[in-house]
């Protein structure tokens, strides 16, 4: 299964890319784990996850081509 990852703000500085795909993840817990293995700095960051543009507050199952966005605290306005 392929999932799209989007990174924004300070998170994109850490990942050094804004958009990519990852495979073989079934849910957001697995995503978080996989990303924090690849980018250990994420472990010290506060960030939210949005699946298909909805911010999640608990683990969510992913579907093929789900879009998972990594959102540091907002600072617009």
């Amino acid at each position, binding site marked *: 299964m392929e999932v799209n990852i*989007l990174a924004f*703000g300070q998170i994109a500085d850490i990942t050094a890319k*804004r958009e990519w795909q990852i495979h073989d993840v079934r849910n957001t817990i697995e995503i978080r784990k996989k990303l924090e293995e690849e980018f250990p700095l994420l472990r010290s960051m506060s960030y939210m996850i*949005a699946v*298909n*543009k909805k911010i999640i507050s608990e683990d969510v199952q992913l579907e093929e081509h*789900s879009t998972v966005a990594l959102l540091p605290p*907002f*600072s617009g*306005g």
Partner: protein
Amino acid sequence: MEKTSGQKYGTGLKEHLHKNVFVNGAISSVFIAESISKHSAKKIIGAHSIFLGQVRNDVINGNEVQAIDYSTFEEMAQEKFQEIREAAFKKYSLTCLHIHHSIGRVNSGEINLFVFISSVHRIDAMEASAEIVERIKKEVPVWGKEIFEDERYQWKINS
């Protein structure tokens, strides 16, 4: 309607958004004036409440902010702006509501947010204004990167 899954970053929505909410760079006073004068044809309006966010030259650890570079997750921001609009029209008796936010670099002293609310009676526009600005700051996925003199930067934290 848009698809709820498989949404790619950077779709046709982007175009739409850039026209309606996001503005490249600073929001000019001429743009604000044009928005105001367009409303003179709506003669039932009795009050306009306008909020403008201006980039401050805060000094952080001895470095002065020269500009803020704003970025967004546009498709999600679009949905959130729409949700904020709908809630405002439901809760308050409003005639018009326009929101514009900068994307990209805005120098200190320049305007990066323009919230323009019109109503028959002033109380509606004024009360809606505080709530809408609060929601934009808290709920819309926009990030500000504070740029210092030597092009060093830090990510802004909303207080």
